[in-house]
């Protein structure tokens, strides 16, 4: 990692970054209202807030991607106006985006060095770039071949590439917008270590996360945003995660996970035997009972997503699937949907919702057949369904003709849940249900999931957040490199046991 050539002026009174009265409007809508913020060199400054509070917008302004409508930004006491992200980068400010922004057809190394290729004269030096990229990713605890095209990587691997890319520029202030949302504990830990390292070198860090314990662990200061306003800035040592949650949501979030009656020994509704998805998962067998919430844990690339997709017919797979004792075989999703299985993709923007279409279209897309009357789609019934879904899933939207892409992440997740529930499935598979979602919404989503189980539906939760699995599930299956390597339940449901199974390393300190 390189440092900015122009080191901070020594012992200067002016802070590295000072923001005063910053406001931002999109058209008539004000998203940020008079934000005052001071970021000191050598500090990790966390920004927390609900989905849609304005965190990403603020970060985009600070990194030159957006222009503020009002207010002033000073660097080292000097007022600045960024002409664009490249200008901000020249001043040592880099942003690690919340959404993954990489060119899928280019290799890892080409992406890492995109726009700032190492060149000898006219010719780009691929060897040096491959080496540099490999080294940068390794420092983040990852191991990715730099010559692989990014399109072939998992979301977690892409996130690592993106972070590596950002840290390669000379930097004085690094902004991480939810970097850990799709990382597993191992990588998260490596990233936190990197952040500690760069802080030690005098770099300032702005850090956004919905994982509050992580914030507590790494931050020096915590700033809370709510509805575009800055609520408070405090020293991290003075606030506990519970306080943070209260400050963000404006109420107490004492109990994140709902109480549930044990599923006990009810009948098996789904039985998977010797399921293989070539290249991703081998010989997986498990059972799911009525009213049960079954967790799937594992490291990045363990093959959980692919196993589920193979099972429901989204990708080619071999094996036996029995529904209520009857063997079935799904060659496409339509069949499994008809049989009462709904799968919610982890990639809600890419595979879950049509971002450029309105809520109604998205809600009924998978279950349009129910809305057809006299050969046409009954729009009145669609509207009624939307009203019902908005009420039932507490989708926060002012207007019902919004586009799905205009909802905040949490509300998109709720819409996706509502969309799949329109199928009235008896088995629901949710992949990463709360990725990038604020704590208040998380609580709601957990409540929905528990409610569904209580109605007698069976649920599989695939997640990289172990506390979530532990808090929500009756049993947890752990996968490692394509195999189900164990099950934890009851008293054994704790992070340590899961990590041991997921990594295959006996000593506890692996995670």
């Amino acid at each position: 990692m390189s440092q900015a050539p122009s080191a901070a002026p020594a012992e200067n009174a002016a802070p590295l970054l000072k923001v005063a009265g910053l406001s931002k409007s999109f058209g008539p809508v004000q998203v940020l209202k008079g934000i005052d913020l001071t970021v000191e060199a050598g500090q990790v400054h966390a920004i927390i807030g609900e989905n849609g509070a304005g965190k990403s917008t603020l970060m985009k302004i600070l990194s030159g991607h957006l222009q503020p409508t009002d207010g002033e930004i000073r660097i080292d006491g000097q007022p600045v106006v960024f002409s664009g992200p490249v200008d901000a980068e020249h001043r040592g400010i880099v942003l690690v985006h919340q959404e993954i922004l990489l060119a899928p057809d280019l290799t890892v190394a080409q992406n890492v060095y995109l726009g700032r290729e190492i060149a000898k004269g006219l010719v780009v030096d691929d060897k040096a770039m491959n080496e540099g990229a490999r080294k940068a990713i390794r420092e983040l605890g990852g191991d990715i071949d730099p010559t692989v095209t990014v399109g072939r990587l998992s979301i977690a691997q892409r996130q690592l590439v993106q972070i590596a890319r950002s840290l390669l520029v000379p930097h004085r202030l690094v902004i991480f917008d939810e970097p850990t949302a799709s990382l597993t504990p191992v990588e998260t830990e490596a990233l936190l270590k990197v952040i500690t390292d760069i802080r030690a070198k005098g770099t300032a860090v702005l850090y956004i996360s919905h994982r509050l314990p992580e914030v507590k662990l790494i931050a020096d200061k915590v700033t809370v945003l709510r509805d575009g306003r800055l609520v408070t800035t405090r020293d991290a040592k003075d606030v506990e995660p519970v306080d943070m949650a209260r400050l963000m949501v404006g109420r107490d979030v004492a109990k994140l996970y709902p109480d549930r009656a044990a599923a006990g020994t009810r009948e098996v509704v789904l039985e998977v035997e010797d399921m293989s998805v070539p290249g991703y998962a081998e010989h997986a067998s498990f059972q799911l009972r009525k009213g049960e919430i079954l967790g799937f844990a594992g490291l990045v690339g363990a093959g959980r997503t692919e196993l589920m997709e193979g099972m429901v017919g989204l990708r080619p797979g071999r094996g036996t699937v029995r529904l209520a004792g009857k063997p079935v075989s799904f060659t496409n999703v339509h069949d499994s949907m008809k049989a009462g299985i709904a799968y919610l993709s982890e990639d809600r923007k890419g595979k879950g919702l049509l971002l450029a279409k309105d809520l109604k279209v998205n809600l009924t897309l998978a279950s349009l057949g129910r809305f057809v009357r006299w050969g046409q789609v009954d729009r009145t019934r669609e509207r009624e369904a939307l009203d019902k879904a908005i009420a039932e899933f507490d989708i926060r939207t002012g207007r019902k003709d919004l586009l799905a892409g205009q909802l905040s992440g949490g509300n998109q997740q709720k819409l996706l849940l509502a969309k799949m529930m329109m199928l009235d499935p008896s088995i629901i598979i949710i992949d990463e249900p709360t990725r990038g979602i604020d704590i208040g919404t998380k609580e709601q989503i957990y409540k929905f999931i528990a409610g569904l189980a209580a109605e007698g539906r069976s649920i599989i939760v695939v997640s990289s957040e172990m506390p979530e699995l532990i808090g929500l599930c009756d049993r947890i299956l752990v996968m490692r490199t394509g195999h189900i390597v164990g099950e934890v339940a009851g008293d054994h449901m704790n992070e340590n046991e899961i990590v041991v199974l997921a990594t295959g390393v006996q000593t506890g300190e692996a995670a």
Partner: protein
Amino acid sequence: MTETAAATAKAKRSWKDVDLRAVAPFVALALLLVLGAFANPNFISVDNLLNVLTRSAFIAIIAVGATFVISAGGLDLSVGSMVAFVASLTILFMNSGAVSDPTMTIVAAALLAIAIGAACGLANGLITTVGRIEPFIATLGTMGIYRGLTTWLSQGGAITLRNPDVQSLYRPVYFGEIFGVPFPIYVIVITAAIGAFVLYRTRYGRHVVAVGSNEDVAHYSGIPVSRVRTLTYVIQGLCVAVACLIYIPRLGSTSATTGLMWELQAITAVVVGGTALRGGVGRIWGTVCGAFILEIVGNIMLLSNFVSEYLLGAIQGAIIIIAMLVQRSLVRKS
């Protein structure tokens, strides 16, 4: 709630946006009508306008089908050749005298044309979906095939409708009028109305737009992506067949050059009508308007006498670019 307010305002803006985008082609059409009136006073005569609308029928009807294909993220370059192929086979059938009664001959020929059109469309669809070949190349291939087969059928010459009874019975399908409005104009309106109903009102139409909008999302929502896409090509084939059925009585004959370049005109009509080539949006009425625009541009240039005929093509090209620029600036200003 602030979030609500924000959302509301945004939605309003985007609605306005959508409206303007849909209205833009009609504005362009209106401007052209004014321009035409200045170029030649005969232009705005009812006769001339009806003439122009009537002969835009072929492209308009084909372009309705193209709207489906393009909305679903595909492309069909073979439609021009398909017109030649379907029309040739249909005329050959009518000449064969397989059915003796003229009325029945025409009915049977119509059914045959529709079947052949659907089959050609199905072939295009299967090659792109099952064969997973990019639509541009797949339909470029079938374009060669359909035109080659036409050349072979005609043995290099023309295929002409011979039976005079059939001819005189069939003629009104292009040249006839109902309440003073030529019959092909009704066909345009009916085809577009059915197209609009299917695209906007039915489940299938919703699926078409979803597939064009994001194939993965459609797939994960249980939509049979390949089938939906293949069907758009079949619809395109059906539209081609309908166009053929009003084309045959007009010229009564086909040759290897029938329908040359019509694919480009149809695609241009679709795009000028406001449908984006990347898929996900389809504007049937805009497409019909686009087809009118293309035909009117040609008509104005023929009626006006100040353009060297060598420059016709150049000016037509320039007008298309200007029309698109006007549209863009209209939409951007909103």
